């Protein structure tokens, strides 16, 4: 029982970390897109 609860807890943490990492990678894509647009606009 406690092993299952532990596994659930670990899975929950892992999912949250994966989601955060996904958001960071998505954010970086958006960041580089914005940098490109702004830099091109300036030139």
């Amino acid at each position, binding site marked *: 029982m406690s092993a299952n609860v532990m596994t659930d807890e670990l899975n929950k943490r892992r999912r949250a*970390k994966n989601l*955060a990492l996904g958001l960071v990678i998505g954010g970086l894509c958006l960041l580089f897109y914005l940098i490109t647009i*702004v830099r091109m606009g300036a030139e």
Partner: protein
Amino acid sequence: MPDGAVHTRYGSPADSSVGDFVALLKPRVMSLVVFTGVAGMLTAPGELHPVLAAIAIACIAVGAGAAGAINMWYDRDIDALMTRTRERPIPAGRMDPAEALAFGVVLSIASVTVMALAVNFAAAALLALSIAFYVFVYTVWLKRRTPQNIVIGGAAGAFPPMIGWAAVSGDVSLASLAMFAIIFMWTPPHFWALALFRSGDYARAGVPMLPVVSGVTETKRQILFYSLALLPVSLLPYALGVADAIYAVGSALLGLLLVAGAVAVWRDSGEVAAKRLFGYSIVYLFLVFALLILDRVPLEP
């Protein structure tokens, strides 16, 4: 890790949560870093596209957080001995140290690279210097060796307004050095006030903070000295023409209150005045840089 390591059970990569990674970035310290960085940007002559300005601020925040993460990796042994730090992710056993180090190194490289690509090389170089100074000069070299650790190491925390200034203007000027000097002179009274009521923690961990090495009286004398020295230094932006009389009067009044707090610490045989001074020192820095920012806001449309 240095000698005298504590045998703590460290966590595995599976144990850490998103909140632990956020904690590694020292978010409370980051808020002051961001605020002073923004003040540097708004005070600097020139213009920066709002998107690039936001990216510059994010880079300053992430760079400071990354340095904090590497600091927590290196100091994991002494953090476990101090009440104030033992619940941090690594000493609390919620995170693998290698994971924290990798996180800090990756974010350091990423923040400097993005700053160089999006903003300019001067700001990126200063950001890299501030991270390296905090990690190698303060954390690795000075912190465990000398009571002057936070005096010299305080330079690391004084870089953000210079980085913000460089992000807009592309250079380093006397005015940005003046903002650097304000934080540099503010750091000793701020941290020594903390050390006065946390000296037991520092003694247990073997960190040679001034109250541990030279005693309470000498620490109070040094706090008063630096608080007095900060008064003329805080007026440098006015003397250099980047702030007007409102800033001069406001920062002088705030500085006098800091000196009054230092005098109260000198007279107080307990810890109450030191706790008050520590709290006020944070408010002081926020307000001085807020005055610098307000000074640049046009009052008429």
